[in-house]
């Protein structure tokens, strides 16, 4: 069965682009979230195999969402997706429990690489 992935980003644009990259490689989109709060709720409800997480979002940013998700599931596989200029926050996110990060603009190969690695494929 295909791995199920939750996409968290406040821009429909980004969610669409990430979904295109992932479905193109045969992954299933478990769901989408447009804020940190939604990300945490959807994680609990959908139990996805992997989460892609934006950092700058309204109603709880990505880093607090990572902390909240790791608190309920220490093994959660979270891939941070951030725009340039947020390096400091990426470090913080990794300390909070995120497993890897990719930087926008996304290169599909780079995104898929990180996803495969995290899923142990």
């Amino acid at each position, binding site marked *: 069965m295909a791995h199920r992935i939750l996409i968290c980003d406040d*821009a429909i644009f980004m969610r669409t682009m990430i979904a295109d990259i992932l479905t193109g490689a045969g992954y299933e989109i478990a769901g989408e979230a447009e804020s940190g709060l939604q990300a945490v709720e959807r994680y609990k409800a959908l139990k996805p195999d992997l989460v892609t997480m934006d950092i700058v979002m309204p109603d709880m940013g990505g880093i607090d969402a990572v902390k909240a998700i790791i608190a309920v599931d220490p093994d959660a596989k979270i891939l941070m997706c951030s725009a340039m200029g947020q390096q400091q926050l990426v470090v913080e996110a990794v300390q909070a429990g995120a497993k890897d990060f990719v930087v926008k603009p*996304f290169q599909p190969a780079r995104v898929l690489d990180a996803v495969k690695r995290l899923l142990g494929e």
Partner: protein
Amino acid sequence: MTDPRRARYVALFAAESRSLLASAQRSLSNWLDAPAEQGPAEEIFRALHTIKGMSASLGFDDLTAQVHEAETVLAEVRSGEKVADHRWLSSLEEILDRIAAGAEQVIAAEHADDGDRKNDGGGRKAQVVRVDLDRLDGLLEDLGALVTARQELERHAMRDGFSPMARSAVAMSRRLDALQDRIVHVRLAPLGEVLERLPSLVRDLARQLGKDVTVDISGEDLEVDRAILALLPEPLMHLLRNAVDHGIEAASERTAAGKRPTGRITVRARRERDSVVVELADDGRGIDREAVARRAAGKGLLEEGVALTDDGLLAILAKPGFSTSDKVSEISGRGVGLDTVVARLHDVGASLALTTVPGRGTSFSLRLPTRLGIVRALVASIGEERYVMPLTHVNELVAWEPGESRQEGGRTVIEVRGETLPVVDLRRLLQYRGGAAPERRPAVIFEAHGERIALLADQVQGQVDAVIQPMDRPVGLPRWITGATVLDDGHPALLLDLASVV
């Protein structure tokens, strides 16, 4: 770019970046009201950051760099390094404007690249299609003809009783209702498309005039017909110019009057029955009634010593060529006059009202119809001539006999259940010269500008869905005739705008 996917990304980018920039501009306008706040900085940052991510993903490198730079400027204040004062906020405003322009440029360039390539259609999201307004107008015209035909069919069906054909006619009518609703909906657009541009406009005006003004906008989600929306910028600009130039006082004058030094303009839209009302209010000095009255008297427009009501004041101000300002400033001197504004509003069935309080400010209400084209209307006649009037203004019908009216304060009035209402005779209004009026006549009680008025007709024939056709206005046509329609028997009737009859 031949990737059909890219077209979809660009469309999403266009929609999201426009909406994010509009919200950033709103945040900035709140920030200008309270420069010590940190919230707006975060909101603007989030918007810019999201735009940057999208822009970078599409390879819009110049725009990405531009947004990145704006983030850096914003960082100075977010980190507490710098304090957001007015000058800094103004420069941020310019930066946002430049980003908006930059975004429009790359979107336009992409569309030019695109040619007429078809959308891939396989999107997971709702697709947005741009349609030429002319085509929508064509659709409305066809629908109009259908609605007229349907009324004729319904008339025959009614005589026919419950035959299969009559039942089919009723079923078709219902589908037509639904279709009519859908077409009217397709034409709707949010007021925000016009209102969101106002704050930066007012700030520009204020800067030029050396005044300090903040703007508050609300109700931008309300929708009106696109054709009406397209007419709005001009009157709003006119009223805003006047508010900033003549309404809002200089900071020193405001302080001396015990007001806060920064002037405030609010633009609030709200729904009222079938209309949307846009209220534009300033907290300035108000309009000087006496000065207007004196000037009007000097021009022979008004008798000496007459006190002006708010409606009277508006009527005078809307007279062609009337202006109270002795020195026409560069700002308000340009553009169209209030007379033109009022006339254009009337043309689409909209109206304007005014309230002003000395020292407290002035408020203009624009009442806009939400939909064009088809109105539920009452058919009334004088002799053989028939007229239609939109039901939105009509409250009730009462029977009237000559003995029931009396003179009071120079006008004819009647009592309707204890309420004294002014009477307007449609015969006199139309200068009708045909046969005599019937003894007993119906009075259409309608509401205009907060007042109830009785309009006497010879006969009332019922209700119709009137399909309103715009018409070339012959010279001398009264302004309260705003359109024409074809009734179900094929005869034409003129549309009366009840709000401007009085």
